């Protein structure tokens, strides 16, 4: 089910009152069934596939918890990981791998090709696979104990607000809350509604209206684009994906809060980050922390802290500057390559991951040399450079293939391509305005909002004006014309 639809709003109108009418186990059953219905609105037949791995993982986790034998525990863990990744590879990457093998075969002139396969990608598979993997790994690490019944566990994996596009939550972040008998709180309920309204505003009011400009630009022949156009398109898509995904996260946070369940934030003004590392502490926080704890740290041979009782604080803070750059080189690039591939079965995503790994590495190398400079100035320079490079990284993320990426980057490197414009003027204006809006929103949040919020009357008036505006936009523009971008992952 898509959040930006009447169906979802009606779904909430039915589920939320029912949730508060029930208690204890009844609520968990309701969440479980509602989540399956939510998923079934996409494709009913895929519900069974979605149930397979969590069901097996649940029983394997119990086996791990009961076993005292370390090698048995390890074997079970490996079995679970093979199963999870096996299904993910089958649905998401098999076609990609077979196409890559066929291309390679053609290059070397081998008489070998894998037949074309037409496999439908179950929506949200990357997300629920990460959920269930984090559960079994944390059980193995001894950070969590598996819940007594499958329904509680199922609510964690399938909980509808985060089922198809995150945030990627840890067992500890959800199950404790599900097992606690929660009482209705008007403050939580109101906050939930506000977050849903805000998310819908970002999605239908901003992201969906930027989308056609981005599509037109990327669909336009590259021969007709100038370097400035490519920069503009990179910025435009950067804004589109930010508003789109943060909208999704906001609606997910709001929907969960209507049931009294608190989700951690997934975004924190990422385009105001002053380093690549800071960017990943502000962008898709739940993914970067997941990757850190389940991929980077194990690959680096480091111990993972027990985060059972803490939220996924996000970012890559454990990519320490004090460590040897050479030592962290391989884990860094491997982690980011896999993270890229997690996003989509295309070399463009792998390239995107490696691009970011290079940014993180470059930052680590450069920072020690800037210690003697004025730090305020360096923060400003850091912000400008991070923004430019992060935006540039969106080109492989959006481009259909590496050939297009190569052509677009190639244009940027030729000074002659800076002398003309290849698109209508509106797009440059919109990109500029969006950048100003993002900066102003950050400044407002940091300097103005605290002042307003302490003055009751001013706060009431400001909020009423803002909600009126947001409601107008949502009422007029609400329609499922575009999926959330992260649905495809």
């Amino acid at each position: 089910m898509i959040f930006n639809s009447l169906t979802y709003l009606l779904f909430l109108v039915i589920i939320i009152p029912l949730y508060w009418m029930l208690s204890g186990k009844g609520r968990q059953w309701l969440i479980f069934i509602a989540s399956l219905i939510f998923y079934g609105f996409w494709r009913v037949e895929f519900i069974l596939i979605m149930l397979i791995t969590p069901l097996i993982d649940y029983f394997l986790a119990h086996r791990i918890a009961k076993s005292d034998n370390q090698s048995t525990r390890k074997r079970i863990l490996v079995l679970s990981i093979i199963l999870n990744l096996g299904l993910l590879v089958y649905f998401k990457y098999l076609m990609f791998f077979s196409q890559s093998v066929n291309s390679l075969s053609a290059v070397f002139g081998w008489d070998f090709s894998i037949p074309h396969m037409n496999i439908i990608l179950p929506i949200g598979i990357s997300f629920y696979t990460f959920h269930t993997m984090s559960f079994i790994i944390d059980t193995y690490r001894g950070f969590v104990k598996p819940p007594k019944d499958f329904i509680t566990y199922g609510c964690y994996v399938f909980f509808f607000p985060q089922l198809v596009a995150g945030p990627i939550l840890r067992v500890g972040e959800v199950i404790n809350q599900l097992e606690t008998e929660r009482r209705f709180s008007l403050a939580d309920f109101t906050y939930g509604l506000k977050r849903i309204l805000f998310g819908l505003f970002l999605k239908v009011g901003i992201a969906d209206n930027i989308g056609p400009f981005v599509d037109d630009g990327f669909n336009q022949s590259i021969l007709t684009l100038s370097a400035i156009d490519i920069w503009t398109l990179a910025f435009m898509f950067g804004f589109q994906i930010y508003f789109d995904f943060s909208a999704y996260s906001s609606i997910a946070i709001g929907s969960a809060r209507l049931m009294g369940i608190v989700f951690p934030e997934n975004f924190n003004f990422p385009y105001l980050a002053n380093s690549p590392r800071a960017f990943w502490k502000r962008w898709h926080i739940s993914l970067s922390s997941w990757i850190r704890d389940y991929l980077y740290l194990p690959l680096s041979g480091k111990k993972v802290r027990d985060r059972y009782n803490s939220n996924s604080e996000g970012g890559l803070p454990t990519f320490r500057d004090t460590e040897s750059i050479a030592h962290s080189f391989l884990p860094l690039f491997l982690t980011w390559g896999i993270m890229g591939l997690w996003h989509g079965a295309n070399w463009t995503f792998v390239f995107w991951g490696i691009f970011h790994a290079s940014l993180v590495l470059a930052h680590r190398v450069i920072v020690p040399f800037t210690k003697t400079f004025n730090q305020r100035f360096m923060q400003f320079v850091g912000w400008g450079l991070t923004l430019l490079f992060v935006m540039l990284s969106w080109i492989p993320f959006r481009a259909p293939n590496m050939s297009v990426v190569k052509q677009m980057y190639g244009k940027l490197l030729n000074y002659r391509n800076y002398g003309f414009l290849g698109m209508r003027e509106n797009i440059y204006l919109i990109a500029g305005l969006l950048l100003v809006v993002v900066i102003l929103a950050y400044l407002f949040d940091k300097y103005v909002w605290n002042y307003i919020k302490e003055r009751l009357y001013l706060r009431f008036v400001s909020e009423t004006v803002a909600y009126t505006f947001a409601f107008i936009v949502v009422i007029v523009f609400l329609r499922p014309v575009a999926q959330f971008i992260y649905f495809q992952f």
Partner: protein
Amino acid sequence: MLSLILGFLLSVWIIKAGLIVPPVKIEQVGLGEGTRPYFPSKFGLPIQISEIDAVPLLQKNVQDHARNEEVILWLGNSQLFGVNQLQPGQVNSTELLFDSLKNKKFVTAFAIPNANLQEHDVVLQYLYDRFKFHQLIIPVFFDDLRETGLRDDLIRDDIKTKLQLDTPRSELTLSLLHQFEGSGESNGNEETKALNHTAQQKVEHYLSDKLSSHSSIWQNRADIRTNIIYNYLFSFRNTLLSISPDSKRKIIPARYRLNMEAFRQICIFCEKNDIKLLVYIPPIRNDVEQPYFPDEYTHFKEDLSVLRQQFGFSLLNLENIVPAGFWGLKGATTIGSSGLEIDFMHFKAEGHKILSDTILAVINKQTTL
């Protein structure tokens, strides 16, 4: 919570009371105030259309009523269907030409707003596969050379197949095919495009229809959306950048090149299929300074002359045929302005008559002015 409820109630009241936007209909927005679309029909079927989905009706009209007649296809943009200050009984150029040529030739037209020559090239071939025409009339608008690519309803499998057959592939064909690669599949309903192939689609349609039948706000959302974009966003842009109808528009070199290449392809197509080609530089207001850079506009006309020499088509320069008084005005497009602005594109029925008569004279004589 109170501010949230109040915000909701206020938003509904504001939309319902029409306080967001003046009550303007969608079809007026694109054409400017006072200009109305006019699509003539003959024998109960259209002779002029603006959407590819309406082609079967046009095709049926031609097949049923023009068996022994010479068929003329007139391509164009909103100038061809937009009539300023349209009065009852008044018609557009297409119908006037049709009536003038009755019993000798059968005039059909396909006109889409802001049509670029790449679109004309594709539409032309698409139509020729469905019914044969013997003469093509085509305006080359300097304005529309700033547009590029195909609009959504031209992103069709049959058009893609045709482009794929085009070998060797020119820069133009590659450019158009690139657009097909990046376009998603259309399910025919743009409002619920994201729900294509999902079980949710039916439920969403049902709920939306139900809501529309009970709420005028929901029913009129498409009008309100368009109005918000035109009345607020465009006005905001125009105010911010001091854009007015007579602001000079620079050519976009790469788009210009692709469009001129498309025009060349049109010429080649006509030559190959023995279609008489009548090209005209369209009328433009001549009592005020033109919204183009003179050297660019002159260069454009020279380019057309070169192509004319190469392909030998009839080329008419109709820039000055419609007197100032027959041109339209449109509502202000900047914030705070309440007056009317010059419309460089659309004229009154009298202007349509002049255009039609001029074309008629040329067809009758088949000479170049």
